[in-house]
């Protein structure tokens, strides 16, 4: 029998207690290492970090949520009207714009981070704002990454709905704005999926926010950058623990939004 790892992340980080000193780690190392043991250790640590309500973990988790939800909100404000406009309006570069949005879904986050870094660095055009290595810079990077994703998925749903509504709305002689509002409202549950995809991309993002945020303790450290840090230090169990917390957070937010949106209920879309 092993005692539960009644230790907080702070203790682990200050070196007072190390996951490598636990019986499981020794057992694992004695056996030549096992991924299953690492996973088990990670789960145990995640459990204890959560049940002991580790203050630093809570701070990092809340910062992760704050950054990603803010980025998601701003991205939705940009992407959803853009998707609706692309659905209802015919203009010269429409197809090229849609193709570009689809292509930008695969935008490499590191490159986005680098570009935002250049723009926000002291010698860059927005250097005077002093945003580099702040959560705001991380939000900007995330917005750039998730806008094309949300816009593309939303456009797909809105295009199908527009095909259904086209004749009716034209015959009712509605304005472009009314068309867009009608589509956005009636497709709101499908748009929730687009927003959740954006949330998933944002909360799991590490490359761009590492570059523009700097992973500064108590300032810009979020779950993903903390995981990268702990992995680099060889603290795999702790990194896994943080990973499990991240997964739990992402699942929790998804379930909450589904519940609020009343999706998959009887007689609803």
């Amino acid at each position, binding site marked *: 029998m092993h005692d539960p790892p009644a230790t907080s992340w702070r203790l682990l980080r200050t070196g007072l207690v190390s996951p490598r000193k636990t019986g499981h780690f020794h057992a694992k190392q004695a056996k030549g290492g096992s991924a299953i043991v690492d996973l088990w250790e990670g789960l145990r640590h995640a459990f204890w970090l959560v049940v002991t309500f580790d203050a630093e973990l809570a701070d990092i988790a809340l910062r992760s949520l704050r950054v990603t939800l803010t980025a998601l909100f701003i991205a939705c404000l940009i992407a959803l009207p853009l998707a609706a406009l692309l659905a209802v309006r015919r203009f010269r570069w429409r197809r090229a714009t849609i193709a570009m949005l689809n292509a930008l879904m695969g935008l490499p986050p590191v490159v986005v981070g680098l570009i935002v870094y250049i723009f926000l660095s002291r010698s860059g055009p927005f250097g005077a704002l002093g945003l580099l290595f702040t959560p705001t810079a991380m939000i900007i990077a995330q917005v750039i990454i998730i806008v094309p994703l949300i816009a593309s998925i939303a456009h797909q749903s809105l295009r199908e709905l527009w095909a259904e*509504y086209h*004749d*009716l709305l034209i015959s009712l*002689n509605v304005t472009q704005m009314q068309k867009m509002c*009608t589509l956005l409202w*009636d*497709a709101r549950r499908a748009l929730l999926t687009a927003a959740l995809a954006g949330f998933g991309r944002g909360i799991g993002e590490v490359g761009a926010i590492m570059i523009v945020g700097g992973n500064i303790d108590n300032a810009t450290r979020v779950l993903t950058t903390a995981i990268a840090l702990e992995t680099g230090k060889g603290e795999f169990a702790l990194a896994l623990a943080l990973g499990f917390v991240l997964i739990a957070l992402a699942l929790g937010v998804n379930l909450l939004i589904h519940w609020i949106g009343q999706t998959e209920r009887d*007689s*609803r*879309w």
Partner: protein
Amino acid sequence: MVSDLFPLTLKGAETSRRGKRLVGPIDLSLDGQGLCVVIGPNGSGKTTLLRLMHGTARLTGGEVSWACDTATARHHQAFVFQQPVVLRRTVEENLTYPLQLRGVARKQARAAAREWAAKVGLEPHLTRRAMVLSGGEQQKLAIARALITDPALVFLDEPTASLDGRAMREIEAILLQAKADGTRLILSTHDMGQARRIADQIVFMLGGKVHETGPAPAFFEAPQTPEARAFLQGDIVE
């Protein structure tokens, strides 16, 4: 209001797509009374003619003119499609939608929705999603949504196609009531029985052109052209 819109005049009106003429040239004048039924075989241009008059099909030649300006005329029209288009909302929200577009207060809009739902027999379904209604109920909803703004003119593109006899009878009753209330109706159908039951005026379309037109009793009694005669006898006319 009907008298302000009519006569509706088409002078050499035609529409083409990719160089192929779909309908026209059409010369036609319609006054503001009764129920006009556009008949003809499949592909004769009934739907396109209705869309041309309504302004949702692009006019590539000629003109469609009203007694008032086109924008005012459009404001006082509605269109019901062959396949009912219902919004992904409740029956009540579907009915209030055109009123909300016109800035009617929510309370008034809801009262009007309840009134029209009762008129077309959809009152028990007010809070249900429109998509779960049967085809006949969806078409009744579409007609009620078209009539709720009190339009002077309603175009109906084969509104009872693919519906059974009972639903057809219910819809015809709604249309006749609307006509009695002073709404001008222009309806397309290839159901001769329906045309005989409800038409005041007939427009017979063939090959994208108006082939014959006149009062319904006279048309059914003594059609002027051999094609119309053959069509009424059930022969294949192209």
